[in-house]
């Protein structure tokens, strides 16, 4: 027996914690119905290496994972292009399969 699965897109972003509300707002506007925020410990990008600033959370980065249908993700990506001109961060998109298509 094979379970029927349905194709969706998985968007993964790494952004600065203080800007999280702006990205969440973008999700709300574009009807992203679900997402999960994960803590990150350290990393490196175009602005060099970072690890959490002691004594404050300004340097903290978070990873956001959101699975949605291709069209929604496309809308989010086109908004992200503008947002990433002002705010630091990266975004990756990949293919996933889900079992409950009505949910995503």
């Amino acid at each position, binding site marked *: 027996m094979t379970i029927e699965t349905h194709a969706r897109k998985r968007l993964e972003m790494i952004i*600065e914690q*203080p*800007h999280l*509300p*702006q990205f969440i707002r973008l999700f709300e506007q574009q009807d992203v119905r679900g997402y999960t925020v994960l803590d990150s410990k350290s990393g490196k990008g175009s602005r*060099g*290496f970072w690890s*959490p*600033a*002691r*004594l*404050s*959370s*300004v*340097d903290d980065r978070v990873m956001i994972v959101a699975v949605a249908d291709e069209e929604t993700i496309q809308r989010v990506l086109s908004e992200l292009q503008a947002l990433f001109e*002002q*705010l*630091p961060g990266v975004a990756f998109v990949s293919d996933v399969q889900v079992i409950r298509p009505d949910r995503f």
Partner: protein
Amino acid sequence: MSEAALQTLLSPVVLFFALGFVAGLVRSSLSVPEDLAKGLSLYLMLAIGFKGGVELAHAGFDLGMLGAVISGLVAGFGLPLIAFGLLRAMTRVSHVDAAAIAAHYGSISVVTFVAASDYIDALGVEYEGYMVAVVAIMESPAIIAGLILAQRDPAAKRAPRWDADFLREVFLNGSVFLLLGALVIGMATGDKGYDTVAPFITTPFKGVLCLFLLDMGIAAASRLRSASGLDHRLVTFGLIMPVIGATVGLGLSWLAGLSVGSGALLITLCASASYIAVPAAMRVALPQANPAYSLTLSLGVTFPFNLVIGIPLYQRAAEIILA
């Protein structure tokens, strides 16, 4: 004064900072867990706020308080202008970076205040309870001033954000909130409340401060070690600006007729630079500013300077001019 200097250098508070600093420089695995450091900081806010409130309940409001508050506001709005001018004149940082750094130096560092009050306590000098309110009042004006400076940037592509996220960051910042809240609670409960909470806020105070400064030392050294883009011009600024701020603070204290103790504290506040509230607000309002500059300067250069050299100097100056 050289004996007094030695005494400062040999106080546990300074020595634990130094220990942390060395640990950070040699990359020891010594670290204070983040949640613990935040807890220590909450404790310090709660304790000085409460103590200040109880003292205020005793003394009641007076004209001195009004003078101190006005001095704080003047410094908060004025110092960023001086800092901005100095930065543009003597360093090569961009307009927006200069504005962001200026906001840090117009605002204050609560731990520097705590260390200073601990220092003058040890000397037996008294200060007024309302100085704690001045600490809270001086946190935010410089942020406003810094944003106004940033707005005047001809090269800016977009205006700084003055939205709800930002305003909450500025005016409902956790540490200011707790400081003021504990102050009000201290005033409301007075001696009666104080007696029940006293063992908690006095017994471990000095030790908590030592542990917290151990962490500050590690943080300062780590910042300096990984500092990129910090040239000698900026470092010079980080050493000159506190002295300028202190001078302004001394003048204001004199005008406001503050006592030696309160004056020494206002001078210290003017000389100190923010490393918690302002960086958080700037990240939201001016994401294009490079946070590495301001935080490294304020935490890695100005804080150690004030802790080791500045505070005894400021206290001595207050003694000479204000006594």
